[in-house]
């Protein structure tokens, strides 16, 4: 009897604990990647759809596991039974019943599911267009220059958006499949080479939201992070106008030497600094690098020391990073000068 009651208690406890854990996890937190928030209209809609379905699932869970448990206890062999059990082969009415009832429940779930799929695919008129180009292992965000709509303004790893206005993201990839995901704000959308995907969402209030590449893309997939900075519309417009300007760097002292080194080395083959000879397009655009808050896909704070670490050996911070390590070819002093130059690019 002892062993049996332990068996029963544990069977009952395991799913209960699991459900509690689920509930705990389902509550909105301030965690940077939490999916069940209402910071974005998209994430709010998804949450509004997910919770009722989860509650149905939890109800069914308790009902069916409860039935299972009851059956186990009630119909266990007690020893000393005089008769063998009745050989029931089935019960048509019951079986039709437990086919129809789940079908009905699922049909009810299917209705809001389909209407939400259709709703989320709509693009509002006043949406701001932002192109997302994913590459191993960073995201490029491309805006239209407010002064000249045909000119593109490119930034890396840090997207600014106006809070409260819908953003229409057009998502592309230059190499393998990636996925654009800001869990606090919206569900993910894959970036597929040769294809343009759309995603529309609004950040409901200003804030810094964390994003990640959600589709495995080899070595540094886990470090392919970015941030979305939602700010009041006016502040956003000022930022975008600033980003559209050419670089205004100090060209004296260490920074001046850094500029010479930057323009005289392999850097310009991949990086662009508008208004200079650097016009590479395969690596992050550094025109306003000094105004960025983070480095290496939001891995490090953007300080001159961290820039030195990155330039010296990028692979140590991001395995497989395409940028060559300059630790062997440039002196520590030279790398420091380059870091000073980049930091002067506000």
């Amino acid at each position: 009897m002892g062993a049996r009651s332990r068996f029963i208690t544990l069977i009952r406890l395991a799913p209960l604990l699991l459900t509690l854990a689920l509930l705990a996890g389902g509550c909105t937190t301030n965690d940077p990647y939490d999916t069940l928030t209402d910071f974005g209209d998209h994430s709010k809609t998804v949450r509004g759809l997910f919770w009722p379905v989860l509650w149905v699932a939890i109800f069914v869970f308790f009902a069916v596991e409860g039935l299972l448990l009851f059956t186990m206890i009630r119909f266990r062999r007690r020893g000393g039974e005089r008769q063998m059990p009745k050989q029931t082969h089935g019960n048509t009415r019951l079986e039709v019943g437990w086919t129809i009832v789940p079908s009905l429940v699922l049909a009810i779930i299917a209705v809001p599911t389909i209407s939400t799929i259709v709703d989320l695919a709509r693009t509002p008129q006043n949406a701001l267009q932002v192109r997302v180009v994913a590459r191993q292992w960073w995201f490029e965000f491309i805006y239209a220059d407010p002064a000249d709509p045909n000119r593109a303004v490119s930034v890396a790893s840090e997207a600014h958006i106006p809070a409260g206005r819908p953003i229409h993201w057009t998502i592309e990839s230059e190499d393998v499949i990636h996925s654009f995901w800001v869990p606090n704000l919206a569900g993910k959308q894959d970036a597929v080479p040769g294809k343009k995907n759309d995603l529309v969402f609004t950040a409901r209030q200003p804030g810094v939201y964390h994003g990640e590449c959600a589709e495995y893309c080899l070595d540094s997939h886990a470090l392919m992070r970015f941030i979305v900075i939602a700010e009041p519309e006016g502040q956003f417009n000022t930022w975008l106008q600033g980003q559209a300007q050419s670089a205004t760097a100090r060209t004296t002292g260490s920074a001046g030497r850094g500029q010479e080194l930057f323009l005289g080395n392999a850097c310009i083959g991949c990086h662009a600094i508008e208004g200079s000879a650097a016009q590479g397009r395969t690596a992050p655009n550094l025109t306003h690098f000094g105004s960025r808050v983070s480095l290496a896909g939001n891995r490090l704070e953007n300080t001159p020391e961290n820039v030195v670490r990155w330039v010296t050996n990028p692979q140590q911070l991001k395995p497989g990073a395409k940028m060559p390590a300059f630790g062997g070819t440039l002196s520590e002093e030279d790398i420091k000068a380059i870091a000073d130059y980049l930091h002067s690019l506000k």
Partner: protein
Amino acid sequence: MATIPQAAVPGFLRRPTATQGFVGWVTTIDHKKIGALYGVTAFIFFILGGVEALLIRLQLAQPNLDVLTADRYNQLFTMHGTTMVFLVVMPMSSAFMNFLLPLQIGARDVAFPRLNALSYWVFLFGGLFLYSSLFFGGAPNQGWYGYAPLTTKLYTPGHGVDFWALSLQMLGIASLASSFNFIVTALNMRAPGMTLLRMPVFSWMTIVVSFLLITAVPPISVALFEVSFDRFFGTNFFNVAKGGDPILWQHLFWLFGHPEVYILILPAMGIVSEILPAMSGKPLFGYAVVVFSGVAIGFMGWGVWAHHMFVVGLGPAANAAFATSTMLIAVPTGVKIFNWIGTMWGGQLRFAAPAKFAIGFVAMFIIGGLSGVTHAVAPADTQQNDTYYIIAHFHYVLFGGAIFGLFGGIYYWWPKFTGKMLNEGIGTLHFWLLLIGFNLTFGPMHVVGLNGQLRRTFTYAEGTGWDTWNLVETIGAFVIAVAVLAFIYNVIITMRSRVRAPHDPWDARTLEWLTASPPPEHNFDEIPVVHARDEFWHRKYSEDESGRAVPRPDYQPQTAAVVQHAHGSGHGIHMPSPSYFPLVTALGLPIMASGLMMKDSYGYAGWGTIAVGAVVLLTGIYGWCLEPVAEE
């Protein structure tokens, strides 16, 4: 072939006669021995896949750990997934099918015994070929699902993907061969009186899974050929710059991949449908419904593949259609749960180890099924896709489901396989450790998944809120490891024990329990004539007017238990002879595959190796055709 006189047969074509020892095992075509080979091999791969999982969990125990490099981690999760799907659950199910199908339908062997041996050897070489990548520049690192264009040479220049693609191609051949074999066996070799609707449910699931395989393997074979041609011959199926389409791979892969989920789970469902009636002393509740829902799952499994692709950008119409079809497939699955509970209802349930695992299967599968419904809701899946929530879901289905079911099957049929009983106490310990470890490992993944932790990431930042749960998961994984050690210990002490199992220890219902434990090579001295579903039970019991089972006075277990005869003696039974040629034929494949990989670096040596492999393969096939039907 039978007409070729023995004298005309050259020596190397004489059929081997050893039934024991090394030669006995490598030449065997006895379905029971092949089943044992499948089982042991799959279990060894289970240990390897488990060690890979433990390393993964060590790396993720805390944020920013450096237990593994990014590349090693990526290789490990690729190997873990590939191993557990293709080298553990599929062949372990195949072990049961091999052993049980002929016994359950009252046959002496499968329809094509040598083809059956070929399936095993191709599977073994496919698995070893995959693992040999560890010694030739590293394991594949593109994920078990190998999304293009990750698999093109531009992004994965090493040989890892080559090993992976060629190995899966071999495993596909093994699956196809055994599927045709099982279908022909089940349709043609049933004992007299065993109509299709008298067949045990496990045999039914064998048929369903075999049909699923012969329709699901071709799409992935085509897709793998495309990957291989891109890599070896410079075609552009997945080269976007030349107009290739990476989404093509996803459609073909999931067109295989979703039926594959049912290929993995249906055998375990069949096993549970055998254990629960025996342990309850009642027939399966709603046999026809369980069988037809299995068939329905098989058919509907074809219409749900794009639910793996809700965030690819197929558009709202496709997403809505596949969300609906995915919800529909939950219905026949749910029906089975109720039928199992109905089977226990009104019974006299014995909580022996097989029953524990079978009920554990039902309890855990309910969770996996319900979380499955929550991501059939396509908009919700845009948040869940590729997070640990998905990992939790499919481990509740494939570990809480398939692995629990398979362990239940091992405890249930062990006496039939080996003639010995596994220790009940250690079995109980094994079960509880496994259940607790499993829930500790995969339960919290629901939470961290909804909280945004992504799969296939070798590290995560501090301050994400995931640290505690990840540590719990790692501890849980090691509890699972201890549970598996308990099982291994159980097997060792059981094999050393001299106590023999009775031929029918569970008071079971189906034909395999009619014969001795372990069964003689020819299975049944006399092919049983079948009069009812659960034939064996009806030989033991009749029913009184209230429908209760009453022992038949004329049933005598000591005479019913078939005395094990020597090879066919006294009954004129002649079993097919062992053969070397399935092994030889299978050996040609990995040789050819190695040559294909060598051709770019070594030129003629590579082409030469391909030629050698082809000669071995053809020798095997010709020898197979020309060897006499039996030894002298």
